[in-house]
């Protein structure tokens, strides 16, 4: 399947991040078009396009927009989730750094459609590089009358505020993000009410991922038919895939949904010399790992679900034969333990407990009994935690056990580093010296 650069099409133009650069490639034409149409028709277009959220869950975007009650007399808000922090996910930050106006244009169109007059872009605090580019794009857009009062004479007003986070993976969970944006601890909210009804400041709110919003101008400009020619019925469109790990050319590859991992791997130059693929994860550490046996599956929401995993953020991490699965899983759990917000018991206590046990395995001190304990502990979190972070934390171990239980068995007597020389998995040489 061919690569189809759309969002990434002009990233080689060093002026793309400027208003002029973006406009020279047809930027803001979609906005002009959108402002002339009826907001509801934009919602319909996005519904018809079948665009699904690119943040991980894949919820239909147009449907999400349509949940916002109209004529309710309350302010509406658009919040862009730019808190990309999931291990393995690295596509929103590059979009904001290279093509921030696509995001801004998408924000304006989306706000117009859902009748929001104030949009917020919540960017994780650890990436000033993305924050300054988006802020600059907004500044230029404002100066050009693309933001502010009465945009292009449409009577539509919009303010966009860039908001920096401060270090909390949990804020990628949409209700935790809202609490954080309101100046509270970023802990998830009890639902219902759902954000579409009572979100930011208890007002109807749409929360969309950066890549989702960056898709909007292209769909509005080129139409539903164009969009649907890519991908599948259930996973239409294209995706900014970011391939990382032990491949020859890690990087950004934009392709239609439905491309296989084998194809992506080929584009990325294959595994590094002499290496064999051991396992890969389609979209972030929260989705179960797959092996070389799954390389020919189409990367779509439905095919990944069928294989017992998820497309997630669509940012495959590829690990070769030098990697200890025990060590990889332990490290992910250390991450979840570090990022657990503390609100609910299963996630707070479960990640603490599981991490401790996994660390024993990493050092070669696990027991057969504890392999069973880990399985039940993961079961005690999955489906019982307050939000999806708990579910995510309960994912790596069972997934790894499906294919690599022998490594855990070995870790009852041999440490991960003895099983796999850590230096062998480094992507540089000379570490031993």
């Amino acid at each position, binding site marked *: 399947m061919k690569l189809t650069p759309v969002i990434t099409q002009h990233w080689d133009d060093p002026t793309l991040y400027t208003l002029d650069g973006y406009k020279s490639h047809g930027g803001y034409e979609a906005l002009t078009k959108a402002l002339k149409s009826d907001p509801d028709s934009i919602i319909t277009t996005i519904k018809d396009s079948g665009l699904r959220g690119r943040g991980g869950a894949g919820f239909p975007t147009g449907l999400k927009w349509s949940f916002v009650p109209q004529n309710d007399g309350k302010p509406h808000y658009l919040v862009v989730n730019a808190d990309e922090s999931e291990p393995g996910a690295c596509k929103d930050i590059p979009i904001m750094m290279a093509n921030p106006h696509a995001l801004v244009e998408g924000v304006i169109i989306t706000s117009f459609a859902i009748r929001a007059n104030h949009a917020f872009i919540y960017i994780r605090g650890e990436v000033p590089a993305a924050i300054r580019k988006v802020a600059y794009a907004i500044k230029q857009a404002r100066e050009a009358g693309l933001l502010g009062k009465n945009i292009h004479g449409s009577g539509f007003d919009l303010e966009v505020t860039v908001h920096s986070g401060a270090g*909390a993976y949990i804020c990628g969970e949409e209700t935790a993000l809202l609490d954080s944006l309101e100046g509270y*601890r970023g802990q998830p909210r*009890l639902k219902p009410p759902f954000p579409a009804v009572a979100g930011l400041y208890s007002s109807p709110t749409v929360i969309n991922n950066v890549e989702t919003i960056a898709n909007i101008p292209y769909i509005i400009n080129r139409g539903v038919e164009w969009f649907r020619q890519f991908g599948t019925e259930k996973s239409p469109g294209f995706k900014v895939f970011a391939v990382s790990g032990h491949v020859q050319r890690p990087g950004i590859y934009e392709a239609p949904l439905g491309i296989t991992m084998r194809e992506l791997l080929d584009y990325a130059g294959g595994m590094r010399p002499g290496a064999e693929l051991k396992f890969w994860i389609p979209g972030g550490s929260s989705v179960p790992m797959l092996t070389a046996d799954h390389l020919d599956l189409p990367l779509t929401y439905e095919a990944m679900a069928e294989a017992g995993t998820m497309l997630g953020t669509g940012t495959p991490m590829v690990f070769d034969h030098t990697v200890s699965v025990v060590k990889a899983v332990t490290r992910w759990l250390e991450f979840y*333990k*570090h*990022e*657990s*917000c*503390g*609100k*609910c*018991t*299963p996630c*707070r*206590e*479960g*990640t*603490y*407990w599981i991490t*401790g*046990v996994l660390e024993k395995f990493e050092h070669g001190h696990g027991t057969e009994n504890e392999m069973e*304990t880990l399985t*039940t502990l993961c*079961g*005690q979190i999955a*489906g*019982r*935690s*307050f939000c999806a972070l708990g579910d995510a934390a309960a994912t790596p171990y069972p997934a790894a056990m499906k294919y690599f239980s022998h490594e855990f068995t070995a870790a009852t007597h041999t440490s991960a580093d003895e099983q796999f020389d850590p230096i062998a998995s480094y992507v540089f040489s000379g570490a031993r010296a």
Partner: protein
Amino acid sequence: MTITNHTEKVDSVSVVIDGVEMEVPKGTLVIRAAEQIGIEIPRFCDHPLLVPVANCRACLIEIDGVPKPQPACAQVLSEGMNVRTQRSSEMARVAQEGVMEFLLANHPLDCAICDKGGECPLQNQAMSSGHSESRFDGEKRRFPKPINVNAEVLLDRERCVSCARCTRFADEIAGDASLELLERGAQQQVGTANDEPFDSYFSGNVVQICPVGALTSASYRFRSRPFDLVSVPTTCEHCASGCSLRTDHRRGTVTRRLAWDDPEVNEEWSCDKGRFAFAYLTSGRIDSPLIRENGELRSASWPEAMHFAAAGLAAAAGSTAVLVGGRATSEDAYAYSKFSRVVLGSDNIDFRARATSTEEVEFLAAHVAGKQLELTYVDVESASQVVLVGCEPEDESPILFLRLRKGVKKGVRVHTVGPLYSLGSEKLSAHWIQAKAGSEAQVLASLDSEVVNALDGTSIIFVGERAATSPGSLSAVVELGAKTGARIAWVPRRAGERGALEAGALAGLLPGGHPNTDSTARAHVARAWNVEVDALPSGGLTGTELITAIASGTFTAVLTAGIDPGDLPNGNELIAGIESADFVVALENHHSEITQRASVVFPVAVVTEKSGSFMNWEGRSKSFSAAFRDALTLSDAGVLSMLASAMGTQLDGDTRELRKELTALGTWMGPRPQVKRVAANPTAGITLATWRLLIDSGVLQEGEPHLAATARPSVVTISSAMFDQLNQPELITVTGPNGSITLPVHVGEVEGDSVWLAMNSPDSHIYQQLGCGYGESVTVQGGAA
């Protein structure tokens, strides 16, 4: 089995829980519905009075058609829902056990040395739905133990299960967001800001609602085991809120007090004074009758003292003044009321040991006495507007304050008329109607039409004891009520005042609001008391006039009960009067300026040693029985009964009999005297704004240093304009006729010509140090005097 709730069909839903068909009101939570049919679902974060958060996950249950277990504490039942709890669902049972295992993983399991041991929800639920062996063998979280979140409340962080009941209470109920969850993940812990304690009048509640032993009180920590305690219900004696409390005692000593669940009054809360101020019950008690001989008090036997007192009082027949402090039970107050009229032949009686006015007497007779439960806590929640006049609920009726907060969340708008926008006002999001101290009447007469128009039949005007010190304000309140339909409630500060009013412990007013000026009323009471109408004294003095009369030697004898002259603006006058009176009988449980000068002193029972009742501001009578039934002390009524007997009259001293008598007297339904309009008379210049803080130097709070340490600091609060005018001094000196008070300045929202001081706090004793009171003229200067 079908359980039907008798609510309107349209407002209910049919559901099934563990096979039991039920109809419950719409909006009912699974956990509450399950309770109704006796199914106890484990829970830690759930509290019926707090907003559901579903964070502990202990209550997971199964719902047919829902793939994942759901939290029963947050799941609203909908029509046709089929719920399976741990009793009928493997999914629910396993989920609950899993959560319990997680909760115990990091818990120290130090039950043997934990105060909560024996009454601990975690311990109990671990026994009922946990495993006996833990699979966790890692290193448990450790924290240096324990830390004080304030002077009274300690926190052992390793025991905490992060249910957030305490922080939610602080924020949602008390409005004191100074106790918070800090850090995150496994390190999440309850705490405060770096240098600031959990600042709340309600902090003890977090100890009570903590489902583990993480929060304990300094006063009870390591004192006893719950199973060694005897628990008895009681009514709080500290204010007129009328809280139901539980007194726990062991070997004749009260070890702690807890809030008792009284949905109509205090729900499940109490203030820290009610909870912690009980050391006075045991320490410093007068333990035997005393009589004065050669100028010195000496112990005497009961018969000797009784004989001595009877002789002295008999000699003063018809010329005795009776001062009943505001802390008497209704029954004791009634005994004084009757004793004064029937035995002493005197109508010169007053229960108001504080600043008063004649206007107040008229107001009480016209609008309060004999009117019970016309306005209740429930009405507070549904009022459209609430106006506070001379009333500071957070300090003076803390449970009313909590109910007001609840109302505010439901849309009640609170207006506060006064010189200071207090912390309490802030927490009620109150609209401040500025009034210079003493000028309330003027301000009420010229209220914004917006406020006046908003008042309607569901509105309530709360007037506090301070209204008596602002001339014309009570008559202005009456006028405002008449004009708008707003109803009026009087909120006295002391627990006994409302009951004493009902008992007729006030000159001119007989029990049940019967006017002592109305012949029908007099005849009715005389008949009940079995005396001739003509023998029923009338025309007694009240308030300041009564004290002045005592001071000027008008009376031969004085009978006092629960009186601290320091509570009176003219306390020195009273002391002088007591000193010069021929004969003074004091019924007290602690020594005071009065007992030191009395001719005879009778020790009386404290609340734990007698039964009785207190009537709260609603006019709700809340009875209680003795915690220590074998106490040898006599109630006031018991002493009066013996005295009466020694003086040749029969007077019942039994609480139950007195209650029966009082009830049988009924309430006056006839015409009431009208409140004569009193003109506003604000003082020129700078006036003093003051009231008693909840935690202060009050005598009933003695002996509890942890509680005292939570008191608000003594300061002089002035407006920023005055602060600037005085060149921003660090100290302020306020001067009255008697002298000065110098304290650190606090710039607050104060009316420009008022200066605020705590009435009776450390280094801020208004009457003694300044010699003037609320609304009276003072001078203010920067720096020390």
